[in-house]
Structures are given as C-alpha cells and as structure tokens.
C-alpha cells in the first residue's frame, strides 16, 4: 500500500510581498484566502486612522487642528512603515495575521516603533565602527558617503514622523545593494554590507589596493578617485585570479607574468570548468585569509554569479584584461607621457594648480599631476607654480619613469651637459649653480636612487644627446 503524506500547506510566503507595502499586501492576500475577516479589516483601518490623528496632534504640538494633505500622507506612510517593520519580522506570516486579527494595531505600531528605534541605535554603533576602520583610499564617493552622507542621515532621521525616508546622498556603490528598501532598514543593510566589504579589504596592504585601483583607472581611462566603483569587487576579482594564476591569496596585484599564466590556465575551458575554478578559488581565499565569518563567506560566494558571465564573455571575446586588472610596469606607472600636443588651457591649468595647493599629501599631489598633466611644458610649469614643497618634489619624482627623469635631468643640468657632455654622469652631480627649486630638489633626489637605475637614466640622457646633438 502506498503511503500518502499530507503536508501542512502554508499559503502565505513572506517573500511574495513587496517590502515597502508588506502589511497591506499581506492583509489583502490573507483576506482573499479567508484568513482575515471584514471586522478585522475595518478595525485595522479605523485604528490606523486613529493613530494618524494622534500623531498629527503630536506633530503640531496641539497648536493646529489642520495640516497639509502631503504632511498627513507622509505621517501615514511613516505609520505603515513602522508597522511593516514589525509585521515583516515574523518568520511565519500567519503569526502576523493572528496578531492583526487580535485587533491590537496600536500595540503592533508601538512594537514596530521600538524595533525601528533599536535599528537606529544599532546602525549608529555600526557606523562608528565603519568610520573608525575606514580605508585610506582617496575615492571621493567612498569618503563622502562615510564622512558626510551617513552622519547627515542620522542627524535628520525621524522615526516618529518620517520613518520611511532615506534622505542621504549615498554615492558609494555596494557590490550587493538593495535599493528598493527604505528608511533605517535600508541604511542598516547598507552598513552591514559595507562593514563586510571593509573587513575584507583590510586584509590587504593599503598600498596594494591603491596600486590595483590606479591600474583599474588606467584600464578604463578614468581617474579612479572620481569613479563610482566598488573597491571590494575590484580587489576580490583580482584576488580570485591571483589564486588561479599563482595561488597567492594575499596578493591582489597581478603582474603581466601572472596574467600570462592565468590566460594559459583558462584557455579553452568551458563554463562548468571555469565555474569550478572560480568557486574553488573563492574557497581558497576564504581558507588562506582565515575568514571565519559566515556572512562574509556567503557574500564572497554570492559574487560567483556576478563574475561568471563577465568571465565567460571576456574569454569568448579575448578581452580578459578588462576583467583582470593587470599591473603596469612600475617605471611607467603614472603614465606621464610628455606630449606637446596636449597643452592645457589657462583655465584648466589654474584649476589643476588650485587642486594641488588644496591637497596636503605629497603622494596625492603626485597622483593629481599624473592624471592631469600630459605635456612637458605643463609639467615644468607645475613644478614652478609654487604648489609643491620640500619632500613633495621627491614624492612626484618617485612616480616618474626613467625616460621622464632623463628629460628633467637634461633640462636641470644643461650647463654641465654643454660644458662636457661625455663626462656627465648623474653619479657625480651637485646642486651647485642651480637656482630653481625643482632643479635643486632633483639634484638631491638622484643620489637616493640605486646605481643601476642611475646608469639606466644616464644611458637615456646620452642616447638623446647623440640623437640630438643640438640640445639646448
């Protein structure tokens, strides 16, 4: 005889309802299924309106008997949001229906308000942790979201009269955001995910993260500091491919050599094979980086679904270099190509100098110059624009390649080169006779380089002299 199992059918699924109209959709569906009667429906509406009347009186502090319709609608939206927060917290929607049938709508509101206020407190604490652990990365959207937008939200958030509002200029994109959520529930999920992403990124040296972002900007021809990019996604992507190319979980920087190894490994693989490799790489990352937090593990694993279509598309179109950010050799790191055809107009130049002056960090000044200056003339003008001081010159010179340094050396030491070109060597230079500040700083900078590199730059100087005997 065949046994027949009768399972209890739960007709209501909490995931079937729009989170922003949860209670109303739940009630309508429950009513359709006969789980809630007309008396309870009428009671629900009457009590909601009674709550609205109470709150309007509180809102006007008893000084006005009327308010604008828009204000009343906003307060009503706030009441429903607070009730939604409580009602949607029930794992089983039928328990919530039972509560509504019991008729204690004002009690549901009170419990919802307590929950919203608890979320607010909890989220403010989480925000402080995120602020304390903020990455030292000059992405404007990231910095302004943490420094300005989130404190602004907490300052104006009003759980009593505007609980549903998410008034905050949050520009920094998460890898997995839920933009359909509202109010404190949205901010809560945003900060929880930002916290996970920050925890992951802090496992790597900040210099490595900066290096990958700089290379990312080069690949996509943008200034990464102004871009709306997710740091976690870029670093996680490179880490996955770093594991696949050289089994180095802690090294997000992928050299051209590692990239070649990676291409060899992925070449000719189909979707299931790539999926296995990527999933295994994420597990290796979790293990090697000693990640034990379940939420972060799952957050990383969820990325497979995002990465796989991009990876397969890149492999099919031979464009893997757009997915994997490959490091450019250090001597051309900042890509300052002296191109006489790219001279800046006066206005742009003044804006650039103002930006440099406002900046207080030498490395950041160097990055601004690297992203803004394309011609030798502009570069020299910047050096002489009184916007760099003391060791900021060496910060900038450190970012230049051998070719660029050889060009600057030819300008700075032109008298020495004219008097005895064959005897000239950077190994013997002094700052005697130099009067311009950047040239004096350059003379101080060269002795700090290793002799191999000085020889290389010397070689470039002498090569150019042979090619252009009429220098100067």
């Amino acid at each position, binding site marked *: 005889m065949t046994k027949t199992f009768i399972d209890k059918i739960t007709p209501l699924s909490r995931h079937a309802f729009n989170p922003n109209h949860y209670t*109303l959709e739940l009630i309508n569906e429950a009513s359709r299924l006969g789980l809630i009667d007309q008396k309870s429906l009428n009671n629900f509406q009457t009590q909601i309106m009674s709550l609205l009347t109470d709150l*309007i009186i509180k809102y*006007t502090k008893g*000084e006005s*008997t009327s308010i*604008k319709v828009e204000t009343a609608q906003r307060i009503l939206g706030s009441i429903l949001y607070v009730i939604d927060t409580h009602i949607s917290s029930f794992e089983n929607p039928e328990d919530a229906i039972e509560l509504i049938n019991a008729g204690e709508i004002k009690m549901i509101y009170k419990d919802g308000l307590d929950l919203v206020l608890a979320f607010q407190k909890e989220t403010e604490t989480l925000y402080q942790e995120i602020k304390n652990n903020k990455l030292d990365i000059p992405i404007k959207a990231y910095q302004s979201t943490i420094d300005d937008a989130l404190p602004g939200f907490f*300052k104006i958030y009003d759980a009593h009269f505007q609980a549903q509002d998410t008034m905050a200029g949050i520009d920094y994109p998460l890898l997995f955001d839920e933009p359909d959520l509202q109010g404190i529930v949205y901010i809560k999920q945003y900060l929880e995910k930002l916290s996970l992403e920050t925890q992951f990124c802090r496992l790597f040296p900040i210099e490595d993260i900066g290096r990958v972002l700089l290379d990312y900007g080069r690949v996509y021809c943008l200034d990464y500091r102004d871009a709306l990019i997710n740091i976690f996604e870029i670093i996680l992507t490179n880490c996955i491919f770093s594991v696949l190319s050289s089994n180095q979980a802690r090294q997000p920087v992928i050299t051209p050599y590692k990239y070649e190894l990676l291409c060899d490994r992925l070449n000719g693989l189909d979707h299931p094979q790539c999926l296995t490799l990527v999933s295994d790489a994420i597990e290796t990352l979790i293990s090697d980086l000693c990640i034990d937090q379940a939420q972060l593990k799952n957050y990383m694993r969820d990325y497979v679904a995002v990465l796989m279509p991009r990876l397969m598309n890149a492999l099919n179109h031979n464009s893997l270099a757009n997915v994997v950010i490959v490091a450019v050799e250090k001597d051309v790191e900042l890509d300052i190509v002296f191109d006489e055809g790219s001279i800046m107009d006066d206005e742009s130049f003044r804006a650039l100098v103002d930006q440099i002056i406002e900046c207080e960090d030498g490395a950041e000044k160097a990055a601004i110059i690297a992203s803004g200056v394309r011609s030798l003339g502009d570069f020299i003008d910047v050096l002489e624009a009184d916007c760099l001081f003391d060791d900021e010159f060496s910060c900038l010179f450190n970012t230049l390649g051998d070719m660029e340094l050889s060009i600057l050396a030819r300008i700075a030491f032109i008298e020495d080169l004219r008097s005895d070109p064959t005897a000239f060597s950077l190994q013997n230079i002094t700052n005697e006779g130099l009067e311009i500040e950047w040239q004096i700083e350059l003379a101080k900078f060269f002795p700090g380089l290793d002799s191999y590199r000085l020889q290389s730059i010397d070689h470039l100087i002498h090569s150019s002299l042979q090619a252009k005997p009429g220098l100067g």
Partner: protein
Amino acid sequence: MVVKNLLDIYPSMGSNIEKLTLGEVLNTNLESQKYGLMLNAVEAQELIGARNQAIRNHGRVELSIGVVHSIVSIFCPSPYINQEEYAFTLNELLDIFYYMKNETEDTIGDDELLGIMKDYFNNSCQGSLELLKNREMTGYANKLRRENQARDYAPERNSNDDQDIY
C-alpha cells in the same frame, strides 16, 4: 483592493474627520449674538460648504471643528463686521485662514495666526478682507518664510527635541 488606498487621505479619514453639523454652527450664535450677529439656517449650511471647500481647495486635512468657533469668538467683537455681511465675512475669513496656514508653512499655531489676522483686520485693513489677504497677510507670510529660510540655513541649527510619543 480589500484595504482601501490608505494614502488617499480624504476617503481614509472620512470617519475620523469631525463633521461640522448644522447644530454646531448655529450654536456659535450664542457667542455672536452678544455683538448683534446671527447666522440663519441657510447661512449656516453655506458656511459648512465653504469650510469643506476651503479645506479641499487648500489641500489640507482638518481634525476638528474648533477653528469655526475660534473665528466667531475672535472676530465678532470687531467694529468692522455687521449683520448684513456676517455670513459672507465668516466664509472669507475661513478661506484666508486655510490659505495662510499653507503660506506660513504651518510654522505658526491656529490661535496665533487668528490673532495676527484680527489685528490687521481691525487696524491697517479697517475691515477690508481684500487688504487683509492680498496685502497684509501675504506680506506677513513672505517675511516669515524669509526668516524661516535664514534660520534653516544658519550654520548652527537647533536640533529638534526628540519626542517620546508612545
């Protein structure tokens, strides 16, 4: 939908908005007759219609009928109101009142606003409803909005006191 569209405030609040009845309006005669002013049943009915229309025209939700009583008790002693124009004046004052609630961005309470209206009406306007609305009250609202703006954009804002409602 089984549950009415709750955000459509007027039908939703139908049972909560206190309806102004003919008896309520006629009761105001007890106060106004001290000054020789009376509404008859037709005028009282017209006042109910004018009040409801003013609330809708100015996009407001009214929770009680207290404003009609307040207008009667505040304006009846005015030397510029006579029996012939009493009903018309009340209708106009109600409209100016709701208009001003919007124009002042709900930043002043009912009693304070009615007090300001009365002062202008009895003094600079000498009973002119046109001057009251188009000159004095509009000018007052503009000045108040500028002051509110200056306060809102001041470098240091006063934070609102957090209220415990329930």
